[in-house]
């Protein structure tokens, strides 16, 4: 089981409301933990088996206590040895049974939880992959991974560490109370009360303590983390600026606040621990105070007194884990709330996109090697290449008229935009950083809804087109596109599953990665590390470009293909892209370099939330001072 708690540090999301507070009306009323647990789709029979095994394990402990108490007090009455034989066998059997049942219980319960986590993770992937695109786009990558990783683990943990211990404690408590009450009802009642004290009140206090600490510590923890990160990330600049000591003081202050916040929770937590302990003692005292008069009154036998006094000592083992279980439930609920918010954001109003569970028709035969192989497994959804489909000569057209773009629930950042992209046409979009170029691309590709105006694909509003048909016509490469932890070739096959090794090599050379490819130990079959950490920034961009070039879609939308490259390479690359000799494609490139834009049919200069100027490179040079100055600045040579 994973005990990683990665959720604590960075939970901020880009649009503030993307992962929180967007419950649907029906979801708001339901506890997110139960919704998440329902998605685990826990096998009831396995859960019952696990609960049974757990109860048997602890039942053995209780029985061991009861039977040995009986054995010893009975033995002191010096009966014939044979009358004790059943008890002596029973004591040994219970001694062995406990460990054995506990082992089986742990195996079954973990299996149940892991199955549930796989189901939840699959459901989550499926609904994120097919739901509203902006739900995942709005979440930072680290947060998304924390949801699918640690948060799913936390929801699974509630089965093993929360629900099962509670079920076992309930079954065992009822059983023990019933057994004691059979001897002496009032002793049973006292035991029941004490079990409630240890198994309900103490866990409630512990959970309250954990919550109080968490709430008060959250702010201090965030400040602590940011001070520590700042000190470590910017160690050099801080030293040179002479600010290392100031920042260390800031860290100390945050840590002191954190300690104070912990203290607020320590009180209830100490009370919970003391109460749990006290409950055992009260149960024993209660049994003595009621049992001794009952013995004197002849209501119970002498051996039974020993049993009702000594059995409770073992019965509390089941409740001793419940305070931790209560804290686990709280943690899991917090994780579940984040998960459900993400799912709700993905599901909201998704009409066309959701699908049922994917059938296993194209399950891989290489189940022994479960490497992620996004390209291969995606064959069914793969768009046919352009020539196969036999597109009309003119090909698809994206038309925007008076288009406004922006993130949902925020003001549009760009409006009044007109453009037309069809095969054979090349457009360049330039403008200062933060103007909304990437948002525009996401909207044109249908991943964000238009915020105004018309956006048509072949005359049909883009939002009404079938997503798969849409993606046969256009493909988007964002600057943060993912490089998978697999081979170079498989990474390129994400764009087109049928890509051959030779086509891959050609695309890499076209993207300016010929030298890089030559240096790879296994050529296109070289595996790339996690998130392509072994690839430099510029190489990564060009790899993404090669992938875009392999896409069968006739319209390409490409974000900043040339960043992290020196000016010469960057200009050559963007120029080639805009001036493809075959002209079978339409290309829209977002870039910050102006020099290569002579190759574009039209350049759109964005500024101040609108198109500030448009025309060919030459027209803009002649007619727009801003463009001319920027271009001149770029051209100053040594």
């Amino acid at each position, binding site marked *: 089981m994973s005990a990683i708690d990665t959720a604590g540090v960075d939970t901020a999301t880009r649009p503030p409301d993307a992962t929180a507070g967007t419950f649907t009306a029906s979801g708001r009323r339901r506890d997110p933990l139960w919704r998440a647990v329902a998605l685990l789709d826990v096998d009831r029979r396995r859960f019952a088996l696990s609960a049974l095994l757990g109860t048997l394990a602890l039942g053995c402990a209780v029985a061991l206590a009861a039977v040995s108490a009986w054995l010893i007090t009975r033995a*002191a009455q010096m009966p014939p040895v044979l009358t004790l034989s059943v008890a002596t066998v029973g004591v040994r059997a219970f001694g062995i049974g406990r460990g054995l049942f506990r082992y089986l219980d742990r195996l079954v319960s973990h299996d149940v939880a892991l199955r549930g986590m796989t189901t939840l993770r699959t459901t989550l992937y499926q609904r994120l992959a097919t739901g509203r695109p902006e739900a995942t786009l709005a979440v930072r990558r680290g947060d998304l991974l924390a949801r699918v990783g640690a948060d799913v683990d936390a929801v699974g943990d509630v089965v093993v560490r929360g629900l099962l211990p509670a079920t076992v404690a309930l079954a065992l408590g009822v059983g023990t109370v019933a057994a004691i009450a059979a001897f002496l009802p009032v002793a049973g009642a006292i035991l029941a009360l004490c079990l409630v004290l240890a198994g309900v009140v103490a866990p409630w206090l512990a959970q309250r303590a954990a919550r109080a600490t968490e709430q008060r510590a959250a702010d201090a923890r965030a400040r602590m983390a940011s001070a520590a990160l700042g000190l470590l990330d910017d160690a050099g600049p801080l*030293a040179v600026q002479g600010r290392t000591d100031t920042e260390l003081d800031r*860290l100390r202050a945050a840590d002191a606040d954190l300690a104070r916040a912990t203290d607020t929770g320590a009180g209830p937590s100490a009370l919970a621990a003391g109460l749990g302990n006290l409950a055992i003692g009260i149960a024993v005292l209660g049994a003595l105070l009621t049992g001794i008069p009952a013995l004197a009154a002849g209501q119970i036998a002498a051996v039974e007194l020993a049993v009702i006094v000594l059995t409770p000592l073992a019965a509390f083992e089941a409740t001793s884990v419940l305070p931790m279980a209560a804290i686990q439930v709280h943690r899991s609920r917090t994780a579940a709330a984040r998960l459900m918010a993400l799912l709700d954001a993905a599901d909201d109003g998704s009409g066309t996109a959701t699908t049922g569970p*994917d059938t296993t028709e194209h399950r891989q035969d290489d189940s022994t090697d479960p490497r992620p192989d996004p390209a291969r497994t995606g*064959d069914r959804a793969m768009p046919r290449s352009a020539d196969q489909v036999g597109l009309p000569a003119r090909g698809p057209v994206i038309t925007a008229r008076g288009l406004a773009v922006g993130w949902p629930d925020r003001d549009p950042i760009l409006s009044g935009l007109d453009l037309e992209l069809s095969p054979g046409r090349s457009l360049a979009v330039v403008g200062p950083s933060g103007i909304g170029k990437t948002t525009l691309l996401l909207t044109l590709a249908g991943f964000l809804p238009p915020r105004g105006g018309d956006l048509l694909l072949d005359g049909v509003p883009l939002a009404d087109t079938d997503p798969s048909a849409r993606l046969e016509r256009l493909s988007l490469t964002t600057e943060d596109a993912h490089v998978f932890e697999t081979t170079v070739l498989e990474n390129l096959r994400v764009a087109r599953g049928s890509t051959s090794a030779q086509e891959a090599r050609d695309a890499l050379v076209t993207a300016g990665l010929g030298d890089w490819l030559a240096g790879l130990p296994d050529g296109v079959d070289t595996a790339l590390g996690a998130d392509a950490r072994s690839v430099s920034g510029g190489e990564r961009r060009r790899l993404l470009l090669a992938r875009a070039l392999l896409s069968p879609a006739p319209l390409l939308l490409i974000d900043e293909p040339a960043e992290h490259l020196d000016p010469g390479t960057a200009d050559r690359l963007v120029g080639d892209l805009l001036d493809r000799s075959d002209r079978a494609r339409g290309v829209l490139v977002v870039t910050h370099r102006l020099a290569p834009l002579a190759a574009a049919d039209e350049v759109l200069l964005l500024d101040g939330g609108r198109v500030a100027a448009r025309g060919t490179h030459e027209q803009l040079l002649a007619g727009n001072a801003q463009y001319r100055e920027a271009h001149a600045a770029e051209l100053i040579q040594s």
Partner: protein
Amino acid sequence: MKPLDPRLLRHARAARGYLALTVGLGLLTAALVIAQAILLAQVLAAAAHDGAPLSELLPRIGWLALVIAVRAVATGVQERYAHRSATRAVAELREQVVERAARLGPRWLAEGAGPRVVTLATRGLDALDAYFVKYLPQLVLSATVTPATLVVILGLDWISAAIAAGTLPLIPIFMILIGQLTQGRSERGLTVMQRLGSQVLDLVAGIATLRAFGRERGPVTRVRALGDAHRKATMGTLRIAFLSGMVLELLTTLSVALVAVSIGLRLVYGHMTLVDGLAVLILAPEVYWPLRQVGAQFHASTDGVAAAEQVFEVLETPLPVSGTRRCPDLSTSTLRLTDVTVRAPGRDQLAPAHLDLELPPGGTVAVTGPSGAGKSTGIELLLGLLRPDSGSVEVVAADGTAVPLADIDPHTYWPQIAWLPQRPVLEPATIGSLVAGGPASASGPGLPRRDEAAALTGLDTVVAGLPDGWDTDLGRGGAGLSVGQRQRVALTRALLSDAPLVVLDEPTAHLDAAGEQVVLDTVRRLRADGRTVLLVAHRPSLIALADRVVTVRAETVPAGSEPAEPDAGRGAPDPVAPARSPEGGTR
């Protein structure tokens, strides 16, 4: 791994008091456990065997109640201070490790153990909480309650004591045996689990990309298959990991059962009194209880102990000895790098290799070279944040005396430098006090100068667009401003500072053409003011401003000269390539 590392007590003062308290409470608990068992046995035996009435037993029941109450209080106190000390000890270790790591410098942080420190400081150390709250008290109890109860049992009934003493050593022996048998398997299992887990996350991280190509549905089956494979691998590991728990429980419960049976058989023949029998029966589980808890909490505590060990490793890394000599005035001194070479971490590369650089007072020097050649490393050398593997870095005073930078007290050197790293680092303050270098000088005669500088860097338009103008509080890291805007703040500050040396690392990297113009104007102004300027630059426009251009080159370490990992050089640029590749042809 040691159960209690003396270094923990040495480095975390909060841990010392806590350990003393825990030991004290552990001794008290041992006494209470024994008192409770004997009182209970006496009362029970008197009532069950001798038929004593309640009234006669009440005094002892009263004592029993007192013992129970004190035990509850002791448990509460333990818990109360466990959390408190854990938080404080973690804070102490965190502060020390962050401070040490920060002083070890950016290069150390970027390689080897460095990147781990971030996780360690923000999250890893929190695992020590379980160690302090759950593991350590049980460890102490197993050193107090276990022997004390064993001694009492010995006094009451030596046969039961022998059974307990005979089984106790079996516990560690079996644990170690199983541990050794399973270690290899579970480590392999763990690797497989982590790999499968990271592959699912890789697919999730790529959802947007898969969607962009319409390939998002296929991986659903892959996610499920990976999940199933992950479960099978995990269960394989757990089946073995839980074995040690089973052996522990089996041994402890079985020996309690054996003790009970043996007492029973001796009672039948009158070889023992009921009081002693009951007392031993109640005490027997207490012998094992702390040990079982130590076993149960062992795994929860290992993460914390491992984190603490990593912290000690960092704390024991020696700091480079910093110099003590006063730095000469940089406005009249020359900085000189002679034949400086640094071996790049983890690569068979010297970056920079044999770099010569002279920065005369008032001069403007541009450093260029392909990425990975060691330009930023060169800056770190010059700033004294890194010592070269070979070659010398010196400050040559106006009178010609050359002082090695390593001998100079950095606190007399750094205040003379304004450094703009690639990502500007701004302290939380208002823009006005940021650019002026402090609130005192944010008004008065400095204002016209400030406005002039802001007009040059374009900060004036940024400030004009902010509701609070110059009084806008940027908070940590310049929240609310874009990278470009923060860069303008940093440029303005550099212009207004009196530091004779200004170092700009790729100042145009994140800027469009208009932003680039601002940088060019600023550098021209710095030159005109007679400041010494060092630029790391890609763009020709910026390079054109320099008096001289120094090209940094990397070199591959000659094969066979040092042991090298077979694939360590993969992906590293060929040092000759820049000269003949097309991108080298721009100049």
